[in-house]
């Protein structure tokens, strides 16, 4: 199956990006959510490189 990439572009927020990622990981990796984790089978979201 061919994986297609969707590239996202982060914004200048008041919370640093690293903190956002850590917060998301902290919640998503809770066992109650891990089992429910869904994904688009052929789509991968990645962060665009900053120009």
């Amino acid at each position: 199956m061919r994986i297609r990439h969707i590239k996202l572009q982060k914004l200048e927020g008041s919370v640093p990006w690293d903190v956002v990622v850590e917060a998301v990981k902290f919640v998503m990796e809770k066992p109650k959510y891990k089992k429910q984790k869904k994904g688009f089978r052929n789509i991968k979201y990645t962060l665009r490189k900053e120009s």
Partner: protein
Amino acid sequence: MGAGTSAVDYDIKVFINCPFDDFYLPLFRATIFAVYSCGFIPKSSLNENNGLDNRIDKITRLIEHCRYGIHDISRTELNAAELPRFNMPFELGLFYGARRYGNKHQKKKIALILERVKYSYQKFLSDINGIDIQAHENDPYIIIRHIRDWLNTNAGGRIIPGANMVWANYLLFQKQLPELSFAFGYSHANYIPFNDYCNLVMAWLIGTRA
């Protein structure tokens, strides 16, 4: 397209023209989630906060930099002061004017116009009769479906997930949002500012890969 915006950026930016009140927040947040899920970038006047910036200049600049526009004209009813709200129809007019009178990039503009109940716009904005307008019925699922289908139609071969998958992920994101907000440093999800909410959605999507 103006200075500082590449052609690639222009083709993935979506101007969101909608109310910013608490009642509309569930639809606004669903809109942001749908736009990101489809690989586009939502832009709103909430992106920037510069006290020296004139509001109308900010809006026209945003419109200039976005190929796509989502315009919700459903909130034209009277406010507490018994006055109608014209901001959304006005910004739709600016967007339309940019396409009509702008350069070759501006002429590529594409819009999704939303209202709450089908054909209600005919009572207050009959000049746009004949344009296909979608009704969202104040339902986040319907708004997600309209946005996804509209982007899918106009995305020029871009890969876009199905509406039901976007909705399933949105429900899961919503379920986790109170805990995400707390881990993020906010006591309530409604207090998260626009840019931080966008980054939260993005980080969640990147982390949600199966």
